[in-house]
């Protein structure tokens, strides 16, 4: 059977490459029509895939055993365990996967709580108001000798604080609702733009073909509540217009079919910069590419997530990312294979390049912007000379203990690393 690319297979059976990736790693169970479709696309019997799932179950059990520091002898009995107690084995593997999912959630929430100034201020407001109410109410309840003047003052304080608590609680709930994709009137402008882009799946075909203009899209976007977020979204969309004028989606898809996913070759073919090509590739439906754009200060200006590669929503990212290596050398492109410290050791192909942006002014350093395209590692042999580099998400949520790039202690190294 001819080897089929993951993305081609996903397209053929009508699911995303990231979902197929989850299936391959046994994070999503399949059956019925989807199982039959995949088997047909691969030209194998459905039972072959079922047996594959069995192997994945054993691998999952062995991983769970390894994390529980079981001996090799004990860990080696996973197959026997699955054979004798299939129900328990399924339950254990499912619990192991659930723990992995929860760990990811903890990483995300902890990162957010630690670095999101808006959330920190919101929580501080709620807790401070609660502290004031609790303290004042206790005085009124316990001190029977309190003067009328103090009593009246404290009653007024409680009244004012309870109103404040109601408002700040609503604001906090609104903020947290952003995580579930609901409207977040009190979210940060960056969060609003992230929701807006995700709602459009990072693609704006109607803008590219001229059916809609930037103002219309922005004014119709329910996610863009604040003036700042609308300004940021316009900046993103203006760039989409400029980028697509030189690299249309139709031409890019045709080029991908002919040349494959070679970022440098595609840049040369269209005569555009490498970061320009990365932005266009990140918008190709079904390619499931992640993208990060940073300025010279290391602030992440744009992010498009990819399953398994954690991009911190707040605070500084891992300084070992190729993204930051190219900032000092605009014009140079880097192709690196990197590994995240996740449970399954997810590996990605990253292309990074930087380019000057903004106007050229005499005796003034140019501003520089770097972009990094993040792609799932394709099937096939390792490219020559490409070693895997260990990177992380952000120091706070990275369990790599001995790392030259560490800026602050990790909450994972003690609390979760040995889980």
């Amino acid at each position: 059977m001819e080897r089929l690319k993951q993305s081609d297979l996903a397209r053929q059976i009508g699911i995303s490459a990231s979902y197929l990736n989850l299936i391959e790693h046994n994070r999503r169970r399949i059956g019925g029509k989807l199982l039959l479709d995949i088997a047909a696309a691969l030209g194998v019997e459905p039972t072959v895939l079922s047996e594959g799932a069995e192997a994945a179950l054993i691998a999952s059990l062995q991983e769970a055993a390894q994390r529980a520091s079981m001996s090799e002898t004990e860990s080696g009995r996973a197959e026997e365990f699955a054979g004798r107690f299939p129900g328990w084995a399924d339950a254990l593997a499912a619990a192991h996967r659930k723990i992995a999912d929860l760990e990811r959630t903890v990483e995300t929430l902890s990162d957010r709580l630690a670095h999101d100034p808006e959330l920190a201020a919101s929580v501080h407001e709620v807790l401070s108001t609660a502290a004031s109410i609790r303290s004042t109410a206790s005085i009124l309840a316990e001190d029977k000798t309190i003067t009328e003047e103090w009593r009246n003052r404290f009653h007024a304080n409680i009244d004012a604080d309870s109103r404040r608590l109601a408002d700040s609680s609503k604001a906090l709930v609104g903020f947290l609702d952003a995580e579930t994709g609901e409207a977040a009137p009190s979210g940060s402008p960056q969060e609003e733009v992230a929701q807006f882009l995700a709602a459009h799946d990072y693609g704006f075909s109607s803008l590219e073909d001229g059916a809609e203009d930037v103002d219309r899209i922005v004014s119709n976007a329910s996610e863009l509540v604040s003036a700042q977020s609308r300004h940021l979204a316009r900046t993103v969309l203006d760039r989409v217009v400029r980028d697509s004028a030189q690299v249309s989606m139709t031409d890019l898809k045709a080029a991908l079919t002919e040349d494959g996913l070679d970022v440098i070759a595609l840049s040369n073919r269209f005569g555009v910069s490498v970061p320009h090509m990365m932005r266009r590739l990140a918008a190709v439906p079904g390619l499931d590419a992640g993208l990060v754009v940073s300025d010279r200060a290391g602030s992440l200006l744009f992010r498009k997530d990819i399953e398994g590669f954690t991009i911190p929503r707040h605070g500084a990212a891992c300084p070992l990312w190729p993204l930051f290596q190219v900032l000092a050398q605009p014009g140079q492109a880097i192709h690196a294979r990197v590994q995240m410290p996740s449970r399954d050791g997810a590996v990605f192909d990253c292309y990074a390049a930087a380019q000057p942006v903004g106007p050229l002014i005499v005796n003034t350093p140019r501003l520089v912007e770097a972009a990094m395209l993040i792609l799932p590692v394709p099937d096939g042999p390792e490219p020559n000379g490409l070693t895997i580099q260990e990177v992380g998400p952000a120091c706070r949520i990275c369990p790599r203990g001995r790392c030259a790039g560490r800026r602050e202690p990790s909450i994972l190294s003690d609390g979760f690393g040995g889980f």
Partner: protein
Amino acid sequence: MGKHVLLVEDETNIIEAIQFLLSREGWQVDTHSDGATAVEKVRNMRPDLVVLDYMLPGKNGIDILTELRADPDFERLPVLMLTARGQSRDRDLAERAGVSRFMTKPFSNTEVVTAVRDLVQLAQ
């Protein structure tokens, strides 16, 4: 005359409640709401104990505490830090900066009064 406490806090109603509680216990309580000038205030007033909020306008409680501890006059000054940030990292930062006691909001009145009393006794 009771001991002298400086309360550095920017929430008006918390200030009133704590001021009332400690005054009732016989303490002399002064208040200050600006983080940027808090160290200067401590140097001028020389209180027996400081109740210090973590998040303040101008300068945060950790920076204020660090600055105080760097001054030999205030190396052993009892400092009770109040915070809405209960994360272990914040507690760790406060302890490294030399906090005497760390208390998360919302606290009970008894906790605050007891902590203030204990800290001053320990310092004597």
